[in-house]
């Protein structure tokens, strides 16, 4: 397995060397090459993709009604994103106010508990098991078989 990988790596390296060499030797002098047919077409292809920019049509310039339509769509999208942002901000503010209220009540209720709550423990770390949401769920589903490890 490793030998195949090394072999293909070698091939790619050879090809890349040829590409760069052809670029530098612009005179295109006599280069002794065993597989001129196959090597050249592949080299030409790579050279074309790497160094030549393909032909493209000039970017569309909208005018009049089409421009108005496009701008309306873009404004609607910006509005949508703004509303999302504001909603997220509102939720965060509500959550903060709730925490603030709880901590004020705790301070009023018990000094000992309050002091215990505001301690910033250096041993609390963020859990590695916290996954970000993906597009599709895990095929195994939720892990119901978790058992508490007794240390």
């Amino acid at each position, binding site marked *: 397995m490793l030998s195949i990988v090394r072999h293909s790596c070698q091939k790619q390296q050879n090809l890349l060397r040829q590409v760069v060499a052809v670029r530098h030797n612009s005179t295109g002098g006599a280069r002794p090459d065993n597989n001129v047919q196959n090597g050249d077409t592949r080299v030409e292809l790579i050279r074309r993709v790497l160094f030549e920019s393909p032909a493209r049509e000039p970017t569309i310039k909208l005018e009049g009604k089409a421009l108005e339509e496009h701008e309306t769509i873009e404004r*609607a999208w910006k509005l949508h994103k703004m509303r999302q942002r504001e909603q997220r901000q509102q939720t965060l503010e509500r959550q903060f106010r709730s925490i603030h209220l709880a901590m004020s009540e705790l301070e009023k209720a018990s000094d000992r508990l309050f002091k215990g*709550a505001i301690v910033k423990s250096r041993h609390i770390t963020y859990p590695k098991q*916290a996954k970000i*949401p993906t597009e599709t769920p895990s095929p195994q589903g939720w892990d119901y078989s*978790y058992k*508490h490890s007794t240390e």
Partner: protein
Amino acid sequence: MFSRASRVVCSRSFSTVAPLRVPLVIKNNRILASVILSRAPQITRDSTSFEKAYFDYKEKIERQNATTFPTEFYFKKGSLAERRWKEEEAARRDAMSNSQTSLTEAAAKTQAQLEQNDTAAASMNKVEKASRLTEADIKKDVKSLDRALQRTLYLVVHKPEDTQHPWQFPQGQIDSAEYLHEAAERQLEDDCGKDMDVWFVGRQPVSFYKKAASKGSEEPGSKTFFMKARVYAGQIQPNKQVSDFAWVTKEELPNYLSSDYYNAIKDSLSEL
């Protein structure tokens, strides 16, 4: 200097005594610690129809402005992958003039058709993806943690002994020697068992609920402090006091919790 006998007496007097569990009551209010245990969303939320339409619009504009794709660089001439690519491209070209279908839909449709016709091509590089709608969604199994994957699920337990709030978050009395987060962890273990991978978000409470002392002044009032926790694996093993439990979304919570209890905690919940 000390004789052996006195040393023995000294060591015996330091024998361990079980700590007395005295429930904490301050100014005729019992202090309770509760846990809002939540399972985070497992999948991204569905796009709204406007979002979907906008993404399709942008896709088509990008295709119009894009450069030509060097197929001969990416695909070997005459290979199966090249054939599949050409069919996808033909579908995309047709979809450009058709305002009803998007480019991704057209490409997906051709792939599905190809798989129906040619099973050999289908097995090549096929990625098995699980469905976003699970069995638990269809069966509406509220005890399952695979339900409502786009939303946050909160744990509520049913304790018939508490007549005012039969459905509640796992809560219990704090002892006078404990801190808030310690009491909350202990209470969660007692009510729901240890077979869950739980992480408490810091030591601060996120919500507060006060129940006034009854008029007859026999029953003390209570002050409940709610701690936030996340669950990453496992399922609850309810103890004898807990007769029932459910994992519910924010919208379903008012169906279980009493209104003043829900109003006290609703600000600390997240939107999704």
